[in-house]
């Protein structure tokens, strides 16, 4: 069994334990979704993780965009097809509850 298969995730595929996360794991998860992580991706992912660490809840895109100084438009380009979900999954944080 690979590390990826051994991971504990909830029914929607979000990591159950944020401490199971590592940068290598993020790369693997992203690759599975067809995304190759570059600097811009990392900035967004680390911001999302930082906000979740501080506030205890996963941020919506608006918060991530403001704090990481990445325009909303760019976030949609970096993580096409549902950026809020993809970012939370790759960053190893729960599904965001915010609609913004």
């Amino acid at each position: 069994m690979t590390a990826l298969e051994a991971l504990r995730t909830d029914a929607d595929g979000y990591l159950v334990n944020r401490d199971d996360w590592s940068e290598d794991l993020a790369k693997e998860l992203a690759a599975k979704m067809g995304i190759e992580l570059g600097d811009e991706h990392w900035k967004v992912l680390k911001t999302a993780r930082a906000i979740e660490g501080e506030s205890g809840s996963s941020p919506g895109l608006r918060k991530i965009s403001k704090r990481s100084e990445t325009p909303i438009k760019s976030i949609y380009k970096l993580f096409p097809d549902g950026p809020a979900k993809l970012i939370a999954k790759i960053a190893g944080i729960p599904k965001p509850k915010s609609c913004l």
Partner: protein
Amino acid sequence: MAYPGLILANAARMAGVDARLFFTFWGLDIVNEKKIDHLHLNLVGNPSAPIPAIIAGLPGVEALARAQMRKEMERLDIPPIREFVEMLDDAGADLYGCQMALDMFKLTKDDLVPQVKEVLTAMDFMDMSEGAPTIFI
């Protein structure tokens, strides 16, 4: 109230679902360049209004309620409507104006905010949305 439809569309885009918005009749105000920054609340005749209708209709009460709501929105980091419409455009949602409503209010596409992609009839909109859930707000 402009927010519910905009928030739903934004949530759809964040989850990777396509979203198309069709603005008609009073809804057209939301994308009308002259009105977008001056939208009003409907307090009278609104059963969810936080104040009794007899008071809600008094001069200045609506402005007060609007100011209060804006403060609350800021606290929750909900952007003003113009910024929200820009955000939806950036998120890849498509915005359309209703031809008949434009005719009725004697407006043209140039009177609408630039994020409005096209002016359509309701039937055109139905055709392009075929098979997708349609929500009327």
